[in-house]
């Protein structure tokens, strides 16, 4: 990563990245550190670093990986230093656990997947969105019908509409991501 400056985000890309990932990264950071204010500070610091281009990227693709990695490293650094200062009672074992690659990567998957799902649902009409939200929570059609006091047929019809609408949205979303990060 430290070789030479090859790629720099445009302002537009930077802003898009902030919009799509800032809040989710704060939550991500918060899974390592309990204090939500410090979690936020860390994410902001990383964003500032990216823009000031103290970090250089090999390609656009690495930007997102960098974000997650940097936030996590910074969070772990903070945890370690707070143990030294004894201001927090995190045991060393739990830090070692947090440091494992799979623990980090599964949080990345949860964060990324949630961002995509949320973006997709936001494009749906209100009623469709409500139904899909319940369907994600593994509600059956009957359970959805009951909780929204509508008929099962309406649920099925709305789901159909939702799937039809989501197809191009998800496609578009992937293209968007690719155009920024590939």
């Amino acid at each position, binding site marked *: 990563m430290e070789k030479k400056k090859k790629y720099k985000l445009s302002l537009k890309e930077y*802003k898009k990245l902030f919009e799509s990932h*800032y*809040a989710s990264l*704060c939550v991500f950071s918060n899974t390592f550190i309990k204090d939500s204010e410090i979690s936020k500070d860390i994410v902001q610091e990383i964003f500032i670093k990216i*823009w000031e281009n103290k970090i250089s990227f090999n390609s656009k693709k690495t930007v997102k990986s960098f974000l997650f990695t940097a936030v996590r490293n910074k969070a772990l650094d903070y945890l370690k230093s707070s143990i030294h200062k004894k201001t927090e009672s995190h045991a060393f074992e739990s830090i070692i656990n947090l440091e494992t690659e799979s623990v980090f990567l599964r949080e990345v*998957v949860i964060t990324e997947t949630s961002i995509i799902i949320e973006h*997709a649902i936001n494009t749906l009409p209100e009623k469709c969105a409500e139904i899909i939200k319940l369907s994600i929570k593994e509600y059956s059609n009957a359970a959805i019908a009951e909780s929204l006091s509508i008929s099962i047929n309406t649920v099925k019809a709305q789901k159909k509409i939702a799937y039809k609408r*989501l197809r191009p949205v*998800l496609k578009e979303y992937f293209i968007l991501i690719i155009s920024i990060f590939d």
Partner: protein
Amino acid sequence: MSISKKIFTYSKKLANLILSGKNSFEIELPEIFDKTDKDYIVSNLTETSKINKRKEKHDAIDKIEGWNHIEKNIFRTKRRSLYWKYAVAASIAVVTSFSIFYFNKKSNPTSVVVKNNILIGTDKATLTLEDGTTIALTKGKSFTSKNVNSNGEKLIYKNITLNHQEEVKYNYLTIPRGGQFFIQLSDSTKVWLNSESQLKYPSQFISGETRTITLNYGEAYFEVSPSKAHNGDAFKVISSSQEVNVLGTQFNIKSYKDENFVLTTLVEGKVAVNIGNKDNQYLEPNQQTVFNKISKEISVENVDVTLETSWRKGLFRFKNKPLKDIMVVLSRWYNIDFSFQNKDLEAIKFTGTLNKKQQLESILSNIKNTGFINDYKISTDTIDIK
């Protein structure tokens, strides 16, 4: 494939499966994960309590505050910083302003505002009774008669029906530019009226006859009290030369005098649209009839009803709408006129959500900051777009 690429590809596939309601996650698991990891991931994305907890945390994050802090650190020159503050704040504050997608043009100096007495629209209307008496309804002024009362923000008719021998009496509710109003008719049907609209309706309906009301002009959203609550009496809305026969529930009619089309959008239930000689055109939810008042042709389109009916919920939502159409909507709500110096600007399309409680100036300044319009000038009650 690098591990990070695998992780992002896996996330996309997972999102797709979850959205399509497939519970069997039979996609290749990146080798870094074992069964425990997979269960952990899936439960975090599908369990109600975990989803809600995430959402709560997510929603508690103040994006604007975050951006302000970052902005302060990354833009040191004042000019740039001001410019960016507008552009980004505008696109982040989803509800209060336009989403701005273009930043390529340079921002111009402050726009000229000569005398700004432009007010945000409010709840107001004029009620015309059967004897011709008119009553101004505005916030803070209440009105009561034997069959209707108003607190100045809505008008509620008492639930009385007439029998065949009695004579039907019509009332009118007129909403000026810069106004909106809610009315509940004597059969409990609810109607939300947009700016510059007029509704004609019987103060009481006759039992055993079709409940007929007329949208003389303008836009209204109807939530019709079902026939079964009225011994099967049907409901009909006349507008322009179009009739909408209501078989149940909720829809929107947009029928402005200065527009060539009557748009009828069905949100829930079923309606039949009739334009005289032709057969009924039945609408399903999320469909809209477009009736051309000049050619007398009618067509059906699939639409996003949340866009079409957002005005009722205090928002104006636009998706790929030409600036001219947007200005027409704004002119009714802010009671202003507008003109384009450069006609090419009329066709530029915007997507975004506006809050009806927003000052007109802040909307215009956001539009200006996209760089598509050079400037605007507000004088008394006219907006000139340059």
